[in-house]
């Protein structure tokens, strides 16, 4: 009796697995693209509403506990971010200016265009309301307030998924820059730590890094150069290891994002 039951369930299990595999293969071949796009539209709206309500309620909760204090913190955080962005822009402009002076007639840097995208969901990845239909491709960079958010890892018809730089499997080649001087101070690898912290690794002991230094993309391994990421929070004490490490805090809170920008290179 029991054997017959197991056989029956195994048979049902196999059929359902086969159907699922078939669905998986067919949808990977874009067979249901338009149908799924149509079906997902109301779901995307619901997800967006749900995220807005969540962010709104979070805001209200923090406001009720020392509203003025919180407001001041937000304001200061905003100013700090703006300052970091400005400093980075300024040092980049200075560098660019020097280069142009030296290399008169050389080609200008590639022009970037930005496509805005509404955030639909934020978990381990960010779901945005732009997809293949709008020209989004895998590997494109996503920024907010000129600060790097992540890279597009999956593209669907009308939505895409952005892997956050804080994701545990995110590894970005970065450059360390002094806020008030030009040029690169050090190079390293920025590792996601799942949460709101990042780890700067593979920085040679001979290179000098300190608290407050800015972290930008170095432009290696298909990452666009000079995109601001964060600021060094704490340099770990020097050890016998070949490389030194530092904790980096991102300049934006990814869970507060409502709109992001996709960089399109012309």
């Amino acid at each position, binding site marked *: 009796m*029991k054997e017959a*039951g*197991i056989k*029956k*369930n195994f048979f*049902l*299990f196999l059929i*359902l*697995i086969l*159907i*699922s*595999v*078939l*669905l*998986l*293969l067919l*949808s*990977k071949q874009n067979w*249901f693209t338009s149908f*799924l796009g149509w*079906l*997902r539209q109301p*779901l995307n709206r*619901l*997800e*967006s509403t*749900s*995220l807005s309500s*969540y*962010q709104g309620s979070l805001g209200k909760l923090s406001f009720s506990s020392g509203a003025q204090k919180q407001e001041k913190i937000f304001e200061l955080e905003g100013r700090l971010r703006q300052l970091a962005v400005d400093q980075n822009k300024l040092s980049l402009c200075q560098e660019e200016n020097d280069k142009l002076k030296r290399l008169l007639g050389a080609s200008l840097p590639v022009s970037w265009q930005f496509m805005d995208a509404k955030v*639909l*969901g*934020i*978990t*381990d990845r960010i*779901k945005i309301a732009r997809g293949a239909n709008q020209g989004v491709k895998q590997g494109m960079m996503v920024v907010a307030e000129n600060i790097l958010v992540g890279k597009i890892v*999956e593209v*669907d018809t009308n*939505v895409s*998924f952005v892997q956050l730089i804080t*994701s*545990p*499997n995110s590894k970005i080649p970065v450059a360390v820059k002094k806020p008030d001087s030009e040029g690169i101070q050090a190079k390293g690898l920025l590792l996601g730590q*799942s949460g709101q912290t990042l780890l700067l690794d593979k920085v040679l002991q001979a290179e000098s890094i300190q608290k407050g230094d800015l972290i930008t993309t170095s432009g290696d391994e298909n990452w666009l150069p000079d995109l601001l990421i964060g600021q060094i929070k704490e340099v770990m004490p020097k050890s016998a290891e070949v490389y030194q490490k530092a904790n980096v805090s991102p300049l934006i809170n990814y*869970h507060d994002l409502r709109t992001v920008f996709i960089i399109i290179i012309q």
Partner: protein
Amino acid sequence: MKNYLLLFLVLIFAILQVSFLPVNLVLLVVLAFALLNESSRSLLFAFYAGLILDLAKGGPLGFYSIFFLVVVFVLLLYSNRFEVSRWFFIPIFIFLVSVIENLFKVHFFVWKEGLILAFVWFLRITLMPERNKDFKLKV
């Protein structure tokens, strides 16, 4: 509760977990359903719940259907030999399933989500201990 109402609950959980909740609440519903219902119904429910989650998440259909089907089937096979109503079994099972899910999803060992889900389940059995006696899961 009627099955379609449960599937509606799955849809709500799917929307929540896609928007901001970093834990797989649908997995809890699928497991709870599997523990309280006959195995053939549980397999069908796992299949539908997976499709709903795939639909809400975006990307190709079928991944979560396969995942939930395998989870329920493993639970079924285990329940044929061992006792599943012991208080510690399901939380540990949930933790392991969540870790495996994250290994597939982000290719990284993430344990916090599993711990939260296991705790939620543990809370459920602590608050409603009488429901544990209803566990059927018979082939």
